[in-house]
């Protein structure tokens, strides 16, 4: 696809990098020559120096024929205008980055009134990813499907888990949970009855929140929703997260260094304990009951500070520590140090766009609702609404022939979430979540052989 990226900041650059790796034709537009130079040196992309709101520049970048424009300049209003101009010139799809919390409620209105196809809010997306993790703190990663009724979680098998050393068929799973796949030494497999778990495997589980909670209880984790959390750094993302946490009934303690910012936080957040202090100071953390926290989330501007304070929290017995880390080279390092969950707004945003682009490319029918790539792109979770004319309907699943490396993870019928058995029958209108390993699905019936 021909993709135009306006604004080559951190997010823009990361997007250009990932998208050009996937063999899309990328054209980057930016006002700053030095930024462009580093882009053109490091990436296989076209760079055009100019303003994104200049029609001439957009035309030069090929906006008339482009498939997608992504506006990620530092200015929300500019991004919206750029998308409007590009759409007017003939670009098929548009994504604008809108970060200002004040626009949060107007986003849907914008989308409709200004024909935006998608709005990108990295901090918001990252905050909601953390909030999902808070409801299931054992997991490394939680992705929501079927209007947040089904989740797919990633979990690293630990020593002493009941799973280890027994074939899958001998294990009794709670209702509404299915083991879909496992990643061992970088290799992903779709799990079958003969699969035996080992310590260190990354397993992927699909199911409802309640079911997954039960599952983790059974394998020996006292996994419950986090009740008390501590957030270091009162950034924009922290505000989003605190609001979400409050809605989930979680007690929030937020530590921010800057007194003026603290005032503003106290004004905009209700029911949160705002503490003015240094998040790396041991005394202060301990006096604020660090050891009693269920989760510790470090969201300051400094990757290093976040990583170190998270390590400290873990050492002090906090079960879950989530640092915000933007530098890619620290991600691996953090995993090695025993921090499984890391949040990086830039990569969350990148992920969202990549999924969006993938869905744009794959979908020819409107049946595909969502496409998520999991396990660093080794697996995909695709959500379909079963179409009326599908050949897969009306018959029990055991009578259908499916493609290999593909699994029907869950089925949502009306209000019920069902983990399908061989007897299950799919009906038109059901929402089906398919877990697959590199199977290209354009339409729902592509799942059949």
């Amino acid at each position, binding site marked *: 696809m*021909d993709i135009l990226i306006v604004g080559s900041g951190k997010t823009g650059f990361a997007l250009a990098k990932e998208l050009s790796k996937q063999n899309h*034709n990328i054209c980057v537009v930016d006002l700053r020559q030095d930024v462009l130079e580093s882009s053109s040196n490091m990436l*296989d992309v076209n760079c055009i*120096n100019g303003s994104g709101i200049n029609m001439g520049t957009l035309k030069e970048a090929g906006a008339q024929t482009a498939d997608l424009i992504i506006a990620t300049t530092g200015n929300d209003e500019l991004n919206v205008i750029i998308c409007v101009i590009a759409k007017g010139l003939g670009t098929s799809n548009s994504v604008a980055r809108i970060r200002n919390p004040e626009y949060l409620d107007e986003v849907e209105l914008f989308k409709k009134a200004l024909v935006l196809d998608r709005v990108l809010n990295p901090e918001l997306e990252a905050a909601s990813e953390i909030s999902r993790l808070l409801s299931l703190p054992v997991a490394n990663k939680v992705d929501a499907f079927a209007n947040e009724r089904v989740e797919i979680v990633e979990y690293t098998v630990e020593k002493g888990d009941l799973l280890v050393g027994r074939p899958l068929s001998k294990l009794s799973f709670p209702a509404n949970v299915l083991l879909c796949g496992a990643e061992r030494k970088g290799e992903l497999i779709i799990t079958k009855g003969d699969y035996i778990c080992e310590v260190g495997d990354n397993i992927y589980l699909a199911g409802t929140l309640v079911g997954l909670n039960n599952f983790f209880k059974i394998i020996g984790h006292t996994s419950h929703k986090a009740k008390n959390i501590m957030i270091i750094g009162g950034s924009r993302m922290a505000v989003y997260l605190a609001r979400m946490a409050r809605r989930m009934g979680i007690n929030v303690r937020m530590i921010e260094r800057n007194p003026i910012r603290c005032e503003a936080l106290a004004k905009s957040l209700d029911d949160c304990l705002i503490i003015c202090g240094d998040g790396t100071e041991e005394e202060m953390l301990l006096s604020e009951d660090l050891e009693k926290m269920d989760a510790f989330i470090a969201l300051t501007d400094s990757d290093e500070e976040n990583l170190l304070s998270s390590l400290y929290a873990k050492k002090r017995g906090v079960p879950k520590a989530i640092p915000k880390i933007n530098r890619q080279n620290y991600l691996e390092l953090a995993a090695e140090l025993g921090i499984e969950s890391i949040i990086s707004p830039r990569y969350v945003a990148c992920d969202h766009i990549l999924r969006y682009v993938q869905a744009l490319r794959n979908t020819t029918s409107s049946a595909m609702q969502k496409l998520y790539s999991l396990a660093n792109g080794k697996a995909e979770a695709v959500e379909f609404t079963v179409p009326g004319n599908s050949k897969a309907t009306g018959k029990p699943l055991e009578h259908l022939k499916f493609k290999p490396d593909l699994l029907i993870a869950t089925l949502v019928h009306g209000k019920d979430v069902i983990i399908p058995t061989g007897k299950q029958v799919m009906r038109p209108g059901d929402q089906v979540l398919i877990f697959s390993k590199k199977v290209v699905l354009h339409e729902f019936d592509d799942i059949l052989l």
Partner: protein
Amino acid sequence: MNYRMIARLCAFCLLIEAAFMLIPTAYAVYAGENVQSFLIPIAIAIAIGLPIILFLKPRSKSLYAREGWFSAGIIWIVISLLGALPFSFSGMFKSYIDCFVEIVSGFTTTGSSILKTVEQLPRSILMWRSLTNWIGGIGVLVFLLALMPVSEVDMRSLHLLRAESPGPTASKFVPKMAQTAKLMCIIYFVMTALTAIALVIAKMPFYDSILHAWSAAGTGGFSCKNLSIAYYNSTAINYILGVSMLLFSVNFIVFFNLIIRQFKSILKNTEFLFHIAVVVVSIVLITININRLFPSVGQSVEHAFFQVTTIISTTGFASTDFNLWPTFSKSLLLLLMLMGGCAGSTAGGIKAIRSVILLKTARREIGRLTHPRMVNPVKIGGKIVEDAQVRSVMVFFIIYVFVIIASVLLLSLDNFDFLTTFSATMATVNNIGPGFGMVGATGNFSEFSALSKLVMSFGMLLGRLELYPIIFIFAPGTFKMHFHEMTGDRGKRRIGKRQEG
């Protein structure tokens, strides 16, 4: 520095060169000429290249700026060393140095010959000579990028293209590097084929047409006749080659714009317009100046047109002995030699875009004399040229002049007259081919000493790769860097062994 990756690139280039050698080999088989002079070099290329590709796996595929400069320089030297072998095995050259000079002259699309007469050479060798013009014109790295699988090179391969492609900035037609290289090759191939077809229609023999099309496309200027194009004495051929050379001295992006029907951007291309204007003005001036030498105005225009296009495109074909022309015409041609064609073409010289930037900068600085506080950035096509780029163009020009001065000084040791010495330098550094005086249209470079020949091959490579890759290889700092890296590596290995023990 990533030596393994550089070695791998060199190996790929050797194999590509060997593949090109199959063309004259096939001809040698067909004409019953000595095949061995090609088979041995091909065998050598495979013997060196294949093991490197198969067994010397690079640890990382990243190429940074310095790897880009270094590999461009090294690759050109390596392919010249191999390319000289067919000449050497043919036994028609006095020494390997002569062969090397001839092949460098071919690959750099210079087209100066150290041979007194070329017609005595086997026709397959002549074919290889002209083919090197064609390969060197667009650059072996462009072929490499077009042919190499995408996974082979890191995305930073722009450094490679930039190191080889003429002009201050390397521009891509389309976002993908490999795609750009492919498009360039296609445009190049099609235009060469069209030239050859036109020449055949103009009644040039088939073999000669192919060879001249190759030389014209690469703006090299190797001919298979002693008299060059004057041999055919045909107005049609003169015009066909003139137009062809002019087209090949134009930035390929113009043809790309033509294909995608972006006619407006062609008319906005300052460099292209400047280039055409210079050509037209020069033709008019030279026609007036040489008018009394020819029986009709038509003939004056024809020769003025041919000579201006052949010089400004840095090809160096000859339709007549311009050594006999008046001094004004010769001086003008000497200036055109320095300017050369457009960036992103196959031509040499300092390039039209740099001339434009230099002229505009000069005008700005003179303007500042009257309005010291004037703010007027250099603009080209309505776009501001960043000061950093202006500076780099000026530095390029200064180094270029230094190279010319140094080359003139060294060539003077041979004690030829000044016009010969100076024009020989201009003709080699700017990749033209013939100069004036002894090295004029009917002369050659055979009389120069071995030292001068090496200096000239050096100058040709400097000119073709636009100084930096070659300077980078021979810069003292680079040697120091190699030294440090090698000793540093060894130090690490020693520590590793100690730990094992």
